[in-house]
């Protein structure tokens, strides 16, 4: 199985210039970048992919033990960079993938030369003076919510999880809708994401790093953005005038221009 097929890798944009890898977070797939993609495409070769288990990746390559830690996702990212022989690439990671980017940059320093963290949070759960914004119970509630939604996804999804392999048209319908995921895989990704603690990893970052946060984000509130900014040596923090956790969808122009400004030759 080639990595390109396994991770549903798509290369687009400029043929020359510094490569930018756009990495989706928990809950969706590379479609998350589709409003930002045309805005960056002129100046950069763009690499988009789905983690194994997400989007149109090869689900048969999914293994629970590998994808139960962020290292497994970071390996996907590194393997994609290796496959394309990227050098000095910019990894733009959304949400949990900001942390995946940190791990990948440490593992493949020659391939990853800069990080852009979009709405990062190194730790979602409050703990000993640290405020991530959530309690362990909240995360359990999310998992329940996920579970009931794979029931409730709803009229379409229920027969699928009840196990109706004899009705392939249901699966077809789901693969056609964005971001549909196998519920067991989503549960593992959710646990890995929301129970992870990457605070220590932030100190290891040696590459230029841009942190993008939103004015109001219930998942990664501003105090978390400030924490990441303080923890990553020499990082740059930009607060976007946007609400929610997905500025690449709600404010694609602002997101893209912040990334472009960070990467423009005069500045870096």
């Amino acid at each position: 199985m080639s990595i390109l097929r396994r991770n549903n890798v798509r290369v687009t944009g400029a043929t020359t210039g510094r490569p930018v890898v756009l990495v989706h977070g928990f809950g969706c797939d590379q479609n998350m970048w589709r409003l930002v993609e045309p805005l960056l495409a002129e100046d950069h070769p763009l690499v988009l992919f789905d983690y194994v288990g997400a989007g149109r990746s090869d689900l048969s390559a999914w293994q629970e033990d590998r994808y139960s830690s962020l290292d497994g996702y970071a390996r996907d990212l590194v393997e994609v960079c290796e496959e394309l022989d990227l050098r000095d690439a910019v990894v733009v990671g959304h949400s949990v993938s900001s942390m995946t980017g940190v791990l990948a940059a440490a593992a493949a320093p020659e391939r990853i030369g800069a990080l852009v963290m979009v709405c990062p949070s190194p730790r979602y759960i409050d703990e000993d003076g640290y405020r991530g914004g959530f309690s362990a119970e909240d995360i359990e509630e999310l998992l329940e919510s996920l579970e009931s939604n794979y029931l409730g996804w709803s009229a379409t999804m229920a027969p699928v999880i009840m196990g109706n392999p004899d009705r392939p048209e249901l699966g077809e319908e789901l693969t056609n809708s964005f971001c549909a995921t196998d519920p067991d895989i989503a549960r593992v990704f959710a646990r890995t994401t929301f129970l992870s603690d990457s605070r220590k990893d932030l100190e290891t970052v040696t590459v230029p790093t841009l942190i993008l946060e939103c004015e109001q984000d219930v998942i990664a509130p501003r105090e978390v953005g400030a924490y990441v900014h303080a923890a990553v040596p020499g990082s740059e923090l930009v607060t976007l005038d946007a609400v929610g956790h997905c500025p690449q969808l709600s404010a694609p122009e602002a997101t893209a221009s912040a990334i472009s400004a960070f990467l423009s030759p005069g500045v870096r």
Partner: protein
Amino acid sequence: MNPGAADDPGAETPGAWPAFSSLLEDSAEDLYESAPCGYLSTLMDGTIAKINATLLGWLGLSREEVVGRKRFSDLLTVGGRLYHETHFAPLLRMQGHLGGVALEMRTAAGPRLPVLVTSTLKRGPDGEPLLIRTTVFDATDRRSYEQELLRARRAADEAREQAEADRAQLREALAVLQRSLLPATLPDLPGVETAGYYHPASPTELGGDFYDLFELDDTRTAFFLGDVCGKGPQAAAVTSLTRYTLRAAMIQDADPADNLRILNRALMARYTGDDPRYCTAVAGVFERVGDTLTVRLASGGHPPALVLRADGTAEFLSTRGGMLVGVLPAAQFVEVRTVLRPGDTLLLYTDGLTEARVGPGRELYGYEALLEFATARAPAGSRALVDAFTGLLRDFGDGLDDDTALLAIGVPATP
């Protein structure tokens, strides 16, 4: 409705029946406010701009507390909010529509309200997103039904896993039991090559075929092979009795026909009345004389043994007239003798081999084909011969539906 007006095309339009419409005392405004579902409209950042009375009533909130003050996600549980941010909001942005999403809302009184939410994005003339319209259905009953389904599914999953584990354990126990009915290895005898093979018909059912081969003294070796009627645990019990009776008898006295008579008595004594149990068997002894083996064997109702000669021929050793073991008190068993010289090999087998179904007509494989197959391979050493037959059994595929045992005894060809 006026039934007489059904043929008039204009009759169905509202304008034609203003009086009828007004009879309902309904208005768009009232329909919005008091609809049997919740309505709300939000700005693109989630701020609630409009909400109907039904939903306010469900949540126990006043319009003033909500409009312009709360976002849609504020109405959700924390888990629901995470779900909203990671799934709902991005999907809605991308697809412009999202239906049937299960969420829980927080009510002022405390209890959570399970709901099903559908949203659509309203766009401006240039396609820019303007606002989000959302309908909310009370899904309390449905959610408890779904939870029951989930519980039932989990219970079924657990039951299935348990059943699979039980099955694996049973299979393992059966395999151990089956192995106990066969020799673990055949003894290494100077100047003699032996080989055995056992094909179980099913991994979940004990077979009724058996064989054994063991030294009596420095020059003589006893062997037997047979087939107990039936399959499963009952047959296995008979097999066990048969194997140990024959073995004990042959150690005492090396006369093959006498040994079958002892087995006949033992089976008849053990299985009386309406549960007769019987078997077919070949029992024999071979003695090493110089570089040859003198073989005596007796058969009780068993298919004839095959001998492959060094000169490339093959023949059956007829034991016609031998009777089933365990049926009649005075059963007759037929004894036959042969000499195996260097390059000769004796093959014992059970009827799983000859009764396999082959070809498009699923005909019996039969003795003729067996002799032909053996002749084509003669001369052959014991191991090579058993390997060839193992391949043949494999080629039968699902045409082979019985257990099959093979035992070969031969004198290696002198170089």
